[in-house]
């Protein structure tokens, strides 16, 4: 209800939703290392942009940390061997969370190996120029760990005519169930701050703000303690609300600015990084390592041992599930959080750089989505939820009438970033977000066809 906003304590953006967060299952559990799977599958396209190009050949032995593929262009990053072992194949097709199979390098793990990282080229980041930093970030194979998996070094170079004044550090973690960023902020605070310093230097930004949702005030406390002697960096609690972690929303909450429609944060002088991304950068770049593992939250009703695990990139989901005690094959697996994540159809899908969590639902749990779909009753809930202030009710009716062009031309379809708030609240159970996704892809198809 709108008037409750009068009493709110922390900064936020208008609209959004408050799903049950279910974070208590894992928030208190420290990050643990996962054993190494006997076979690793490292897809060559794990991020937006061009896929990486293999540097190895089948039968070749690789050491954990060694580059096995190079960047396929500027908007692309190299891959590093997640384990010490032997390359078995270069373009094995493995299923991906998105559906279609993609080529991956298969590495058979040496079971007896200690799996120490055997490849690093330490650097003195204080001596590096911004250009060198950008290159170092790319060489580390960093992509956004917040979910979008966009190559991180690209964001360090604002487009012509723009400059970055503020770095916004995204510690919101607004998705239900996920707590990996929370643990990173608590356990890897120094690395995080080092990463922030590095990014500020690379971009020339004078200021950085860490935005953390107010359900993680312990993290705010720890960071604030460490920031005492760090001028230019602030930490701020924001209201717990989905999708507080979306960069546009976080910018609005913290800075009161809006990213122009169709634009990027750099257009208003802001760069947004996930806390996990920066903590990794703060660790990897000085040591000259590549990104070979990440923290993944495994949680949900279908998991016996939920927790935050340090998972090597390329670990197949089936192995992960075995380790956490999710036995039933019939479970519903979601990669990412329940609001934005993908349902996976196969246990062969490997963990990639962008996977922040795996949520497991039991197959027969009473399922709200299976309810019948009614026509839109014009309740307006979706309008009150949409953080972009679209009119999902009207867009939904237009989608049902297949007026995809009208949706785009008159009702800002392309501003929808598929956060799922409208589908979440709709009492008629209309799959609005899903409709919009389809509408966009059909518009894209017709445009390329034309």
């Amino acid at each position, binding site marked *: 209800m709108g008037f409750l906003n009068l009493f709110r304590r922390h900064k936020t953006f208008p609209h959004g939703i408050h799903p049950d967060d279910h974070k208590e299952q894992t928030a208190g559990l420290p990050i643990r290392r996962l054993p190494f799977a006997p076979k690793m599958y490292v897809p060559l396209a794990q991020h937006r942009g061009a896929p990486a190009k293999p540097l190895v050949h089948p039968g070749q032995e690789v050491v954990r940390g060694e580059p096995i593929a190079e960047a396929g262009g500027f908007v692309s990053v190299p891959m590093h061997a997640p384990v010490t072992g032997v390359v078995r194949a270069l373009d094995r097709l493995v299923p991906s969370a998105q559906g279609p199979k993609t080529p991956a390098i298969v590495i058979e793990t040496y079971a007896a190996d200690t799996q120490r990282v055997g490849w690093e080229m330490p650097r003195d980041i204080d001596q590096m120029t911004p250009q060198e930093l950008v290159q170092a970030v790319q060489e580390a194979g960093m992509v956004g760990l917040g979910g979008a998996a966009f190559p991180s070094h690209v964001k360090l170079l604002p487009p012509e005519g723009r400059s970055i004044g503020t770095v916004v550090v995204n510690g919101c973690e607004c998705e239900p169930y996920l707590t990996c960023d929370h643990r990173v902020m608590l356990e890897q605070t120094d690395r995080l701050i080092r990463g922030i310093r590095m990014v500020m230097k690379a971009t020339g930004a004078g200021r950085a703000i860490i935005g953390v949702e107010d359900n993680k005030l312990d993290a705010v406390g720890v960071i604030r303690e460490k920031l005492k002697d760090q001028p230019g960096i602030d930490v701020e609690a924001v209201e717990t609300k989905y999708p507080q972690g979306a960069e546009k929303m976080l910018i609005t909450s913290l800075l009161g600015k809006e990213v122009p429609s169709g634009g990027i944060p750099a257009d208003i002088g802001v760069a947004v990084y996930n806390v996990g991304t920066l903590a990794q950068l703060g660790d990897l770049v000085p040591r000259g390592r590549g990104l070979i593992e990440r923290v993944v939250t495994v949680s949900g009703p279908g998991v016996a041992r939920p927790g935050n695990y340090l998972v090597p990139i390329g670990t197949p989901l089936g192995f992960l599930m075995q380790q956490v005690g999710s036995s039933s094959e019939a479970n519903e697996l979601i990669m990412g959080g329940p609001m934005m994540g993908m349902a996976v159809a196969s246990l062969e899908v490997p963990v990639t750089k962008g996977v922040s969590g795996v949520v497991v639902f039991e197959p027969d749990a009473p399922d709200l989505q299976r309810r019948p*779909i009614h026509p*839109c009753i014009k309740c307006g809930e979706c309008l009150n939820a949409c953080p972009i202030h679209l009119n999902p009710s009207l867009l*939904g*009716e237009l989608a*049902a*009438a297949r007026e995809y062009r009208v949706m785009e031309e008159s009702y800002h379809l392309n501003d929808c970033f598929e956060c799922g708030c409208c589908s979440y609240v709709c009492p008629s159970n209309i799959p609005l977000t899903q409709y919009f996704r389809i509408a966009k892809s059909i518009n894209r198809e017709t445009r390329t066809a034309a």
Partner: protein
Amino acid sequence: MATLPNRQEQVTLDTFLRGIWEENPVFVMLLGMCPVLAVTNSTINAIAMGLATLFVLVASGALVSLLRKLIPKQVRIATYIIIIATFVTMVDYVIQAISLDLYNALGAFIQLIVVNCVILGRAEAYASKQRVGPAVVNALGMGTGFTIALLCLGTVRELLGNGTILGIQVFSSNFEPWVVMVLPPGGFFVLGAWLLLFEWLKQRKAEPAGAAEGATVHES
């Protein structure tokens, strides 16, 4: 217009019947709706209006057809309007002479026959291209179709709204009239209901027997 006969037509039964069913000006072509709705709150009004329109249709059709070779293309519409207005003025005076009550009940709608699209439409699309015979027969058909449509509305509205037909009590004196039927919304509703009925019959006929195809347009 549904048909634009450019060649000379023979007078057949169809020339007459077309206006009654296939090309009924009201139910099919949705022309001349204003008088249809406005004066049909009683049967007698409907009849008077129907006959007046019929007369103007036939007379102007005949005259237009007679003069069709003399009227230059550029001024034909103006000419038709003058011809129609002439006949309407005549009807107007004649009705005043017959009954002032009727005249008052029909109000301005007699004079508004001038702008009734049915008449101008017939003059333009048919009478101006045909010999007098077919023109008159066609106009008779159209006029009759129009009158029938008026009657369809007039009787329903008077019967439900007043319990009478042509002023004669049909139901028991205790019948509670549905006043709304003789009020403006009733006009819209009754005409809408007739159209619904025709559409329903049409769709039922068009549908192959036993087909279970839903009427649902799309699922959402």
